[in-house]
């Protein structure tokens, strides 16, 4: 009985260690395939919001490009990198040329390396199938979006290597927001309203939103109002997308860790409440 009552005061260090263990084990399945038998790792049904992103990429008209806005850094790498990966992979598959537009110093390199690896793997050519812009300060994001919706090349001027955008084959004929068929916003931050307000709504450009899981609840409003066409909520969104694309990347591997960590959390909450209820009963007597 006393043990059950004390269970509501587990030392936080014990909790930390438990979490570390339950997250690490499923991630090890790559090295120890036998673990696959222990960790539940079922196929996922693809949710409506993820399907929306997929359909939007499929529907980008010929002659238009997609803009991938990168605002993530090393900190949210595990959530945002798989999202970047699946989006790039799908666009390469579908032949939608896209532009990486980073608003974060680290994201500039991280996203470039991510996409570059996939491009090499899929035999895609820089400048023809994709282009990467250098870092732009996020503080002036609103001005940059407004500027590029009127004059894409004039606002952004050069790519990350300093090549003039007007000299890049992919950018031929890309003048303004009217030539953008899709905006993909990959971010852990609350920057979505800027894209909706300055480009999505005025020019009727569809927006696909890839937030971290914690930012996702806020976006259901925009989804409901059709201001965004779809969303990949955190890692699980990327997992479902990998399923749609029939690839097995980091997101698929991390699926098990998502399960185990949430199970641990729920178990702890239940235990805490058992202790709480029992101790209250004891006090009541």
């Amino acid at each position, binding site marked *: 009985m006393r043990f059950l009552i004390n269970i509501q005061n587990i030392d936080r260090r014990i909790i930390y260690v438990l979490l570390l263990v339950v997250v690490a084990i499923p991630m090890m399945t790559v090295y120890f395939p036998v673990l696959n038998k222990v960790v539940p790792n079922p196929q996922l049904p693809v*949710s409506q919001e993820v399907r929306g992103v997929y359909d939007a990429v499929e529907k980008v008209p010929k002659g238009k490009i997609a803009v991938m806005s990168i605002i993530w*850094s090393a900190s949210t790498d595990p959530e945002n990198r798989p999202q970047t990966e699946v989006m790039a992979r799908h666009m390469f598959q579908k032949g939608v040329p896209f532009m990486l537009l980073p608003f974060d110093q680290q994201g500039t390199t991280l996203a470039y390396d991510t996409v570059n690896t996939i491009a090499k793997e899929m035999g895609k050519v820089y400048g023809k199938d994709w282009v990467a812009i250098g870092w732009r300060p996020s503080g002036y994001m609103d001005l940059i979006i407004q500027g590029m919706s009127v004059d894409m090349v004039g606002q952004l001027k050069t790519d990350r290597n300093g090549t003039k955008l007007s000299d890049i084959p992919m950018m031929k004929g890309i003048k303004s927001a009217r030539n953008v068929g899709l905006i993909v916003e990959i971010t852990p931050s609350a920057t979505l309203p800027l894209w909706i307000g300055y480009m999505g709504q005025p020019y009727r450009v569809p927006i696909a939103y890839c937030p971290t899981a914690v930012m996702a609840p806020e976006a259901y409003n925009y989804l409901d109002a059709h201001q965004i066409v779809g969303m990949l909520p955190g890692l699980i969104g990327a997992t479902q997308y990998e399923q749609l694309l029939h690839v097995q990347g980091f997101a698929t591997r991390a699926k098990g860790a998502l399960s185990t960590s*949430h199970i641990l959390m729920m178990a702890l909450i239940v235990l805490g409440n058992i202790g709480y209820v029992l101790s209250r009963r004891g006090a009541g007597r």
Partner: protein
Amino acid sequence: MIGLGNSLAFSLFVPKQGVALAAYMIGSILIGIAFLFMLTRVPQKYRKILIIGATFVAGWFYMLEFFIPGTHDTSLARSRFIAAQRHLQQSAQTLQPLAYPKNELSASQKSGRIATATRELDTAIKDLTEARVSIDKLKPDLNRDLKTANDNANAFSKEHRLTDKMIEPNASTKIIQQHISEIGDSSGQAEGAIAEATAAKNSLSTADSPEEIGAIAANISVAAESAGLAAGAASSNFLTGYKDTIGTVSSVIGGFTLLLGIINLLSIHFKTIAKHKLGWPSSIAFFVAFIAIIVFGMMQTYGRAGGNTKALGSAWYDVLFNGGLAQLQASMFAMVAFYIVSAAYRAFRIRSAEAALMMIAAFLVMLGFVPFGIWLTSGLPASLSFLHLDIIRGWIMEIPNAAAQRGMAFGIGVGALAMGLRIWLSLERGAYFDK
């Protein structure tokens, strides 16, 4: 730029190069410093008035830019396009039930629906045509304006003997060009929508089977999308062209304040070391990191291409930035996971009925997101599919969650509007604009 003529004041703003440019830059910096110096000398009482006045004047720019309609107003066409889009959607919706083979509708119900859908199509076609005519009318005006703007710009650069290098593409010509291309696009989209809608209307009179009607409804939805796209056109007024300039001004001011911030940072850490305050070794770490990243960053940026300096700079910069900072940040963020679990464990106690309700909702959402939870209910038969945890999760997120978020968002939006208004009109008597 027209109308200012050759006055002395205006000649200050003509682009310069060479020695004149250098003198101009130094002069500007000196004037800036003098201005800052004067500002600090202004007594407190007048400074408040100065701030209030400056805030008020600055606020006008964005307000007017937003509220003054564009010179070449496309708003009429825009609203027509949106109306047409709505009519088309309505038409498709009315036809939708006829596309279900299971719906056994009477002949009169059927013909009634088709008549309604046709009427909606007619209205939409009328709206689209009107809108298209109204935007096409703008074309000659715009072409004339473009010519005038180009002529003016050429005359100006000739008069002041500007070289090509000194000329930035003119903001006003750029915007007019953009308008012209947009109007062409809109017109094209409208044309497509009209063609689709007319075709749909014609085939509707002969269509009979649910499949045919379903296909027509789908075509009408496509036309609705084109109508929506046609509505997307920018408009600009005489202030729009200056937005870039204002943005530059504010970033220059931001640059000055950064210097003040860094001075504060340096002085605090210097004093901490000098006085051996608690945690002074960290301050040494600060100086080391601060200097290292500046030095290596400079070496990387300004070193001769292919030279040793550049190679060394970028190697170390990479170590410090990607090896150090990025990893530290990633681990900092990863800590959130540990804190979430321990905070949830500590705080989630069923103290009341509401708390119990919240816990149930939280469990459903968590299970509905993770593979394990989805697997739990995946065995249910199709007739019970609404009990699937991912479906329940979707319902909670899209209905109660979105409603609550929206409620708060409205409150926060109105609050921000009121705060902005109070600051702009200097009604905010908090600490910032004191009595």
